[in-house]
């Protein structure tokens, strides 16, 4: 009854806010039209000039907004950094963990991944591993089967089912789990030794519902992968660290995410209808009022796509998935208990997934047109140069901050500080423009509801070198 009443109240609030937004939009449109005719009369400008002027003002406003966003992220990230002074728990206080891992056609690196799970620095009787083979067509199941005979004394459960998708495989594993904490991990990721201890320490706070880990790129041997590594460091993890200060991290990545099991059962498990099931689940946890934080020292290494086509597939899937999750959880904005920080975190998700990429693309097209039609080349240069400066400053901070989460792992191909200036130049000039274009296409397809598939990404199997290189 109470739930019905709540729904009714939300429905009414939603209607009210919808009408207020509609009235505001109509008001702004009338105001703009009035301003347009006023400018035309007083200054005697043509409509083409007014259009150019308005677009310039608009882009300038977006640039200021971006500057503001960088500043906020930097300050929050610094504050979050000082908060990570939390002590590690004593052995008797460690919670029981179920590591769940869905597997589909991962024969190339599966043994390395399982080996990393069996060699974690955590009491052997306090964690179990549940592997769900989701109908692999290669030898993944046979490889995982061999590990049942491990002599480590760790409980290992191997489940096999017909191919039903990642979300269903994860839910199946959760239903078989016995730990208080669930660690979901991707089967193309290698986990570092101390990740469990660092991730679990936050769960002493009863209000913590989930902890996002730090995803890093292992195969940084080519420029293209180095650019992706920079994006993970400066774009994804940097944002997570900042939002962590507000306890409102908006995506707990599927690659490494810790969840309190009772909360997962309360908010509902993974949703198979959404391509970014991790984002959807995180939003539901946040909506239920729990804290979601980021732990930079809980690290997994993953393989980055080695071709542009594969990167395109990956980012297209991520963007459409995030948009689906955002759409599904939009009632969060009308939720009476939604705090300012929660709304900010939600809006940041939209900003990163669509708003900023669209603006960046529009700016590039606009300045390119100005250059080609009127010969105003420096505008494009100024736009690019200002963004590059911003990227460089945040990349320097993210680099130094990321250094502290090395977690005793050795990777001789990783980005060096001296690489940063050149890398950031190419990053902004080519890489981010490419990523933003993909995001805009993905957004348009999501709006038009065009068909999409999971689009599997090929990996080269370079993670196999991981255990050899880890320092003891």
């Amino acid at each position, binding site marked *: 009854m109470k739930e019905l009443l709540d729904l009714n109240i939300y429905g009414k609030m939603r209607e009210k806010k919808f009408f207020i937004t509609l009235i505001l939009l109509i008001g702004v449109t009338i105001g703009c039209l009035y301003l347009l005719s006023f400018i035309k009369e007083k200054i005697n400008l043509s409509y083409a000039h007014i259009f150019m002027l308005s677009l310039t003002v608009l882009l300038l406003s977006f640039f200021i907004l971006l500057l503001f966003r960088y500043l906020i992220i930097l300050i929050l990230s610094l504050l979050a950094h000082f908060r990570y002074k939390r002590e590690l728990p004593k052995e008797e206080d460690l919670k029981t963990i179920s590591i769940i891992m869905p597997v589909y056609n991962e024969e190339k690196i599966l043994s390395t991944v399982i080996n990393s799970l069996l060699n974690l620095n955590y009491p052997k009787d306090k964690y179990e591993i549940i592997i769900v083979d989701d109908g692999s067509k290669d030898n993944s199941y046979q490889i995982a089967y061999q590990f049942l005979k491990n002599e480590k004394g760790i409980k290992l*459960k191997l489940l096999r089912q017909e191919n039903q998708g990642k979300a269903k495989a994860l839910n199946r594993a959760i239903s078989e789990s016995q730990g208080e904490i669930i660690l979901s991990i991707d089967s193309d990721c290698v986990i570092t030794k101390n990740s469990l201890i660092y991730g679990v320490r936050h769960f002493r706070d009863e209000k913590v519902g989930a902890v996002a880990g730090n995803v890093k790129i292992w195969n940084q041997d080519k420029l293209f992968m180095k650019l992706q590594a920079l994006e993970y460091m400066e774009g994804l993890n940097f944002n997570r660290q900042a939002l962590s200060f507000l306890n409102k991290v908006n995506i707990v990545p599927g690659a490494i995410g810790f969840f309190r099991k009772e909360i997962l059962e309360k908010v509902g498990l993974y949703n198979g209808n959404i391509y970014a099931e991790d984002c959807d689940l995180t939003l539901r946890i946040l909506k239920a009022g729990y804290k979601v934080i980021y732990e930079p020292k809980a690290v997994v290494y993953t393989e980055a796509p080695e071709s542009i*086509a594969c990167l395109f597939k990956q980012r297209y899937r991520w963007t459409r998935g995030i948009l689906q999750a955002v759409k599904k959880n939009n009632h969060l904005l009308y939720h009476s208990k939604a705090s300012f920080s929660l709304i900010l975190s939600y809006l940041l998700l939209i900003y990163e997934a669509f708003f900023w990429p669209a603006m960046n693309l529009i700016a590039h097209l606009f300045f390119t047109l100005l250059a080609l039609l009127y010969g105003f080349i420096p505008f494009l240069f100024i736009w690019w140069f200002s963004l590059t400066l911003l990227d460089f400053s945040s990349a320097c901070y993210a680099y130094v901050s990321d250094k502290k989460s090395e977690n005793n792992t050795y990777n001789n191909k990783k980005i060096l500080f001296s690489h940063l200036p050149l890398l950031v130049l190419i990053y902004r000039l080519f890489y981010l423009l490419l990523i933003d274009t993909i995001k805009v296409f993905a957004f348009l397809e999501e709006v038009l509801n065009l068909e999409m598939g999971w689009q599997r990404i090929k990996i080269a199997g370079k993670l196999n070198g991981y255990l050899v290189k880890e320092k003891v």
Partner: protein
Amino acid sequence: MKEVITILSAIVLGVTLITLIFSLVIYILFRLKINRKSNLNDKKITTEKEGEEEIFIRYQPKENEKN
């Protein structure tokens, strides 16, 4: 100084144009591939597979549990 900025601007403009055209081409190829795949799937005769389900559990008890 002015010449330097003009040259740099021209480079930025060139790379921007190439990236934009390149992204568009990649997108078109990507979309064509999805459409082709979906057409193939439509033509494929789906056969129902028998559900397979296996569970294996391995647990090495600790020394004190063995007794």
